[in-house]
C-alpha cells in the first residue's frame, strides 16, 4: 500500500525505516520522506511505529469488533 501519497512512499519502505530504528514520525520523514509534505499520513505512520514497539501501548489492533470479532 501507499502510505504517503505526496511522495509515493509505500508500506514496505516505511516498515523498513521503522525496523531500522525510527521511533517518531519525524525520524521516518527524515529517513524516507513519508509524511514530510502535507503530513496527512502521519496517523498511519504513528500506527505502524506503535505496532512495531516491543510493548505496543494499545496492543494488537482489533481486526473487527463485537460480533465480527475473531478470537
Amino acid at each position, binding site marked *: *500500500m*501507499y*502510505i504517503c*501519497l*505526496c*511522495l*509515493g512512499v*509505500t*508500506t*514496505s519502505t*516505511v*516498515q523498513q525505516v521503522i525496523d531500522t530504528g525510527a521511533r517518531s514520525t519525524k525520524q521516518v520523514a527524515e529517513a524516507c520522506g513519508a509524511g514530510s509534505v*502535507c503530513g*496527512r*499520513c502521519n*496517523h*498511519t505512520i504513528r*500506527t*505502524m511505529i506503535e*505496532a*512495531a514497539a516491543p510493548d505496543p501501548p494499545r496492543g*494488537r*489492533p*482489533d*481486526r*473487527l*469488533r*463485537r*460480533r*465480527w470479532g*475473531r*478470537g
Partner: protein
Amino acid sequence: MSLVLAADYRVPDFDHWWATLTGDLPRLPSLGAHHIVVYRSLEDASRIFVTIGVRERGPVDALLRSPVMFSWFDSAGVREIPPMFAGQVVEKLDLAADAAAPAAASAVIVAAIAPVGRPEGLDRLRASVHAAAARLAASGVRRFWIYRALDDQAEVMILQEIATERQAEQWIHHPDAAAAFMAEAGEGAYPPLFVGRLVRAIEVPGN
C-alpha cells in the same frame, strides 16, 4: 490492464458526502477513473471501502499525488488520508451458479488487504483457493477476487462476496484454511477486515 485503487476509511458525515459525490465525479476522468464502487460497513456507518477502477495512464505515484485524489478526500471531510492499495486483478472466481447475476441486496462483502508472504505466497493462495472452491461455495462465498499490489508482489487485496450476513459471520469466525489471509488483516498499516454491503457501483461519466 486496468488498475484498481482501494482505500478503507471513515467519512464524518456519510449522507452529506453521498449527496455531494456527484460534484466530484466530473473531475475523476482526469485520473483515468472509469468506475467507483462504494461499500459501507455493517458495524460502523461512517466506515467505507472504496475501489476506483483506473485505466492506466502513467506512473501510479503520479496518479496518487494528483490534486484530484486529494480533492476526493477533502470533499468527504477526510483529514487523515488512509493508505491506498494500488493493484491489478489476478484472480476472479465466480463460485455461485448465478454468479453472472448482479449481487443480491442481502450479499455481504468481506474485504482484506494483507501480506501473503514471499516469494510464492500469492501462488500458494491461488492454488489453495482453487482447491477449496467447492467448500467456499458451500460456505456461501459467491465471488472471490484477488488483486496483487503493484508496489509489493507479496501484498494482496481480496474481495469476497458472501450470500448472507449470517454466512459472512460464520465465515469470519470459522474460515477455511484457504482464507487464512484474513488473520493477517489489521496488522500495522493494514486495515482491519471490512465487512459491509455494496452501496453503489458508479460508472464515471466522461469515460
